[in-house]
């Protein structure tokens, strides 16, 4: 039973560039949430996708956008990268929008130079 998988694991970009991160949820899960975790901080909620729509959004600018596909996998896109976007981006899957636990992937570590 595959857990949550994310790609790429590491990447380096320069300011102003765009990045796309990918996530495949745990088998049987239909909800994907994205979190940004800066060094030494807790995960910050970016947004959640369910039934291919953005359902909830945290305090992140429009430069952060996403998508969910019919197979429940998801992408996170960040445009016009800033140095402050350097972080570990975590994808978490869950079943429905209910109160269940989050299953996290290993994350994608983005460095913006």
């Amino acid at each position, binding site marked *: 039973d595959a857990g949550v998988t994310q790609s790429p694991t590491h990447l380096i970009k320069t300011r102003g560039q765009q990045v796309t991160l990918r996530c495949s949820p745990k088998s049987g899960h239909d909800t994907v949430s994205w979190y940004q975790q800066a060094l030494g901080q*807790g*995960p910050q*909620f970016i947004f*959640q996708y369910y039934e291919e729509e953005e359902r909830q959004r945290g305090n992140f600018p429009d430069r952060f956008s996403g998508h969910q596909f019919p197979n429940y996998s998801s992408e996170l896109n960040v445009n016009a990268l800033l140095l402050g976007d350097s972080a570990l981006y975590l994808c978490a899957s869950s079943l429905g929008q209910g109160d269940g636990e*989050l299953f*996290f992937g*290993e*994350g994608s570590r983005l460095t913006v130079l």
Partner: protein
Amino acid sequence: GQQVMQIPQYQHVQEGEDFTTYCNSSTTLSNIQWYKQRPGGHPVFLIQLVKSGEVKKQKRLTFQFGEAKKNSSLHITATQTTDVGTYFCAGRRGDKIIFGKGTRLHILP
């Protein structure tokens, strides 16, 4: 800004000593979850508390949810080197799960 506060930020304990981390929310939570993140790893779910005043135990770990559903604690008895990591509380408000900044536990041999 951060709406779920967690203290302390860091804790160093001798192996065998107890450890406690506290989580406080400014508003009532529908539930609270606890996660552990090992160095270089990703958060892993430990437990969820839903009821006011709920107490749950997992071996040496004891979790409590406050009567007002605004605070929670995690207590580890007789810490071991395998307990090293950062412990996060995550409070659910509506459909959002808000994480605290975590408490980093370091075990001194």
